[in-house]
């Protein structure tokens, strides 16, 4: 019922964040205007990891309590994860040209994010390989739980290895190292992208649940 409102609010915040960031936030002292891609790159990177984390929580719920809905949510979240991880990699690659002088660097953060992208695709491929969907759900959940080991590796890659990628500018435990004139539009962009992805995820999972449960009475009676 509230789905359209969540989506519109997401779009609205995303538009505000991007217009504010691209048009009104000041230039960076070193990177000039090229830094403005953070308003797309940073939210995409954050949600690439968060979606996987969400999938891992759902996978645990499915494996431990056999919650059927949790498996449906994993299956619905994975394509969103593929798209958002691709956006994070692609936008990072574009940002690499003016800052590092190269499209691609075999850097720990970038490589571990690429692994995450392949993991998402692997999860979808694994699920589609089995005609018994209940079995596919369980195997997919096991893989998701095992693959979650990649998330701390991505997160800590900039600390554990000497890399070209800069450390996180926004952390939960410390004050942000980014100026507030850039921080606020970034936070608005992150919120906007979050709401948009939540709405998109609910939309996809709704469709998926209807497809999986199409022979059930409640779906046939659903108006």
């Amino acid at each position, binding site marked *: 019922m509230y789905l359209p409102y969540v989506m519109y609010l997401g779009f609205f915040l995303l538009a505000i964040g991007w217009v504010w960031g691209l048009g009104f936030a000041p230039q960076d002292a070193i990177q000039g205007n090229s830094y403005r891609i953070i308003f797309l790159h940073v939210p995409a990177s954050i949600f690439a990891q968060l979606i996987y984390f969400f999938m891992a929580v759902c996978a645990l719920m499915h494996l431990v309590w056999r919650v059927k809905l949790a498996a449906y949510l994993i299956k619905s979240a994975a394509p969103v994860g593929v798209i958002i991880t691709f956006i994070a990699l692609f936008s990072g690659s574009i940002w690499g040209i003016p800052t590092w002088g190269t499209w691609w660097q075999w850097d720990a953060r970038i490589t*571990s994010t690429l692994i995450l992208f392949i993991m998402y695709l692997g999860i979808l491929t*694994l699920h589609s390989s089995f005609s018994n969907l209940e*079995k596919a759900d369980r195997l997919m959940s096991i893989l998701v739980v095992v693959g979650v080991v*990649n998330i701390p590796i991505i997160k800590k890659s900039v600390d554990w290895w000497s890399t070209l990628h800069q450390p996180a500018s926004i952390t939960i435990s410390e004050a942000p190292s980014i100026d507030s004139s850039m921080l606020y539009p970034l936070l608005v962009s992150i919120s906007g992208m979050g709401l948009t992805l939540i709405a998109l995820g609910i939309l996809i999972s709704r469709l998926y649940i209807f497809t999986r449960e199409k022979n059930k009475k409640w779906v046939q009676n659903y108006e």
Partner: protein
Amino acid sequence: MFNLLFAEAFKLRHRLRAWLGPLLIMVLVLIAFPLSIDVSQYDLNKFYFSIIVISLLMISFLATESIFSEDYEDGSLEQIYLEEKDFYKVALTKISIYVFFIGIPMSLIGSVFSFANGVSADELPKIFVVLLFSTLILFNLFAFGSALSLNKGAMLGVLVSLPLTLPVIVLLGRAVRTIQYGEGFLEVLALLLGVGLILMAIMPLIISATLKTHLE
């Protein structure tokens, strides 16, 4: 447990293709590599490790490709499931036997070929230990991939387990650098061993759950 160990060792000994095949392929790959480049232009011993690491990765997968599938096809897994309802011991035994019969020879082959390509004899024990600990990790991860894709072919197994092995490759790269530059070797070795032992304890549990899912 010892009966299981002997049974698995006996089974593997009779599957010549399963243990000798990967070793011969590793030898062939390592022979082919120096032939494909002009050695006079390169300092071969500096990057010969890379080909050993990559061949170790691929051969580990080849070696564990049929670790459970043959038992699945001949009904042994189903029988074990009916008797014990658990595959922890089977998975642990199989991986240990594979590391013993394939991992150790693979590590030896890798060390010998490093020596043949200009690496000093003093460094050979270090290379052997690094390769051995790496096979311990890789065999666990690929056995998991193999269990996931039990009857769905090798491609799926590689696709799901290969991304999990890439952090290990990073670790191996670091180990190789410490061998070359002589600092921090023991720390990296301890890390490799730690990861290997953790996987050895946890992975049979995960594999057991995976196999049970296939048979339920």
